[in-house]
């Protein structure tokens, strides 16, 4: 639902960290992203090329391309992450630190940085950090990072034109009178405790 004055605080892994940003940078964020879009190739501003490539891999693992639908990368998740990292240093720290942790863990456990691993090894790594129940002194930083990564990739996907279309949002248009289709109402009623009424 829309962010309105009643639903103000969004909590994802890093809630309550104070953002700080030089005013000028905020203005450049828009400009930079718009320019990059125009050129057709996105040049990350805060993530390194290697970090950005890893984010693209994560994005397509979190929301995979399938059934002809775009995955997280095509939905612009890596660009979104770079834009937000440029906008807020706490997010840059979380991503840079998280990606560095990921590479160190991958090297130690699977013999190479995350981007260099094969599909199975990458899954092996994510299967550890994608669940709070695997919490341990060693894995906790990765679990915390992946919760943020998951949230932000999902956010990028659902807010993309394609993600919104796949979800089926049909609103923010004009209607003369408001009503809902009777098929929809009947669908819900027959599946509810009120179907006999």
């Amino acid at each position, binding site marked *: *639902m829309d962010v309105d*004055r009643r639903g103000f605080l969004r909590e994802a892994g890093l809630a309550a960290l104070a953002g700080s940003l030089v005013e000028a940078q905020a203005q450049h964020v828009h400009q930079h992203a718009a320019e990059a879009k125009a050129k057709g190739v996105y040049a990350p501003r805060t993530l390194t090329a290697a970090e950005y490539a890893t984010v693209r891999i994560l994005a397509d693992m979190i929301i995979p391309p399938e059934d002809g639908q775009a995955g997280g990368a095509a939905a612009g998740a890596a660009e979104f992450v770079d834009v937000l990292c440029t906008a807020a240093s706490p997010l840059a720290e979380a991503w840079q630190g998280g990606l560095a942790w990921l590479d160190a863990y991958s090297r130690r456990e699977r013999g190479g940085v995350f981007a260099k691993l094969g599909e199975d090894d990458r899954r092996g790594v994510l299967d550890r950090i994608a669940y709070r129940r695997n919490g341990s002194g060693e894995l906790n930083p990765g679990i915390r990072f992946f919760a943020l990564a998951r949230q932000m990739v999902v956010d990028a996907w659902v807010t993309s034109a394609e993600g919104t279309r796949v979800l089926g949002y049909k609103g923010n248009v004009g*209607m003369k009178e408001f009503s809902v289709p009777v098929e929809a109402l009947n669908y819900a009623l027959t599946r509810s405790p009120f179907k006999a009424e």
Partner: protein
Amino acid sequence: MAQAGRQREIHDVVVIGSGAGGGTVAHVLTRLGVRVTLLEAGGPLNPARDFKEHKTPADYPHRGAGERGESYTGRKDVGFFGAPNCYWEIDGEPYTVGEGSRFRWARARVVGGRTNHYGRITLRFADYDFQPRTHPEFGDGLGDDWPISYADVAPYYDKVEEFIGVCGTAEGIRSAPDGKFLPAPGIRVHEHLVQRSCRKLNIPCIPSRMAILTRPLNGRVACHYCGQCGRGCVTASNYSSSQVQIFPALKTGRLKLITNAMAREIETGPDGKARAVIYVDTRTREEKRIEARVIVVAASACESARLLLNSKTKTHPQGIANSSGVVGRFLTDTVGYGLNGTVPALAGMPKHDTDGYAGGHVYVPWWLWADKKKSFPRGYHIEIGGGYGMPMVGSFAGVCSRHEGYGSSLKKAVVDSYGTSIGLSGRGEMIPNEKTYCELDPEVVDRFGIPVLRFHFAWSDHEMKQVKHMHETFSAIIEGMGGQVTGLRNPEREGQGISVGGTIIHELGTVRMGRDPRTSALNGYSQAHDCRNVFVADAAPFVSNPDKNPTLTICALAWRTSDYIADEMRKGNL
């Protein structure tokens, strides 16, 4: 009237603040032929330029997270897409909170104030709400009675509703008096289910009463159901004091609007009458002074208290209107509690547009007003959320957190969850208590050098018990429709999950009215007992904070005060 040369202009009426109260006063007085000067601390409003009504997250590289990623790092404003200039924190204009208290204060700085952003819920007080302490049927000995009655206010409820346009249905429920309504729109599927679940529990669930046009009115077109009311409405199909009252009042030629004007204090003369407003031009930080016959303070409840406390003069050593010492005291906010659930009956439903107007098309008015056995005083109404909202940053945070993992199953969980959740939000009455008030901070000033407010806030057992009741009721409603509670299932203690004070944004009561000048600041016309040409026209005069959103009553009382001011001016008493 303006004088030539070096003589100063004496304004007839200066109104401080352009929200629901100030906008109503400006509108009513200019219609009655009175010249009004309206000061607004914030800047001007340009709906076509300023409202993001029909934008989507995909229009922005940050997808609505904000230019500084505030959705992830913490917001100062109330929301990226919301109408402009409403904040939890204003740079250069801090407030402080007493040790052991938690309070957040939302302030707007724009023409129209928070009426540009609010939920448009438009509820009359019940008759018994004006006599909570001593009502013959329901009085509970708590708090205080108003010095005015429903009968005094009802004609003004009529006027406001007929002028601003309110949709709803007549239901004959004592806790929710019927108004002058435009037709109510159709309801959403999840609202049908909520209604039926409520019916099984003998709880009323009726069409909402909203300051949103479903038919054209006074040159404004009807709502087009884009569901983005909180972002501002370019067609002024919902109520905002800016678009519905101030812009038309400007056309009369009798309203002078001064923006970027932060009132610092009110000056009184040796006779104790108010004679001028000192304000700061917020762009240049220059101090200015304007003289006035009558001053109406409508800066929002706590800002009004702050201004009066900062207006210490020889004749008013405790601040104007504060001979009683009550200014800043009797602060309350609405009791808030929310519970969400997922409803299997909605899973897989054919997708359709559920936007409507923003907010529930149905709500639950308080139904236990006559129950002598309930464990807490007063009551609450219930607001209902659900449907296929515009996907935003954070919309699926709950699913992500519950499902965890990654890949196809995560994506499926997100897609399958869409539209299956509903939210119930309780909005209840807080009893004023000794520990809840605001005062001037003894040390801190804002960037204009004006002493800031320090807030003290505490809930009492009354409110905690009310929240326990809300939790039990909401769980029953959700489960009654075949749903499952996804939020707090088993509260560890009574009242767990109660809102942080101030976050429901109905803070009020800080310059209360009453018959006795020893225990109140204002009379029944919101006129200061100790300074007869000063009035207060926001929610500061409220004696209680019933389970009805304050805006309609702010407008009604402001209209009534305006009629009184015009009458007194005509008689030469002001």
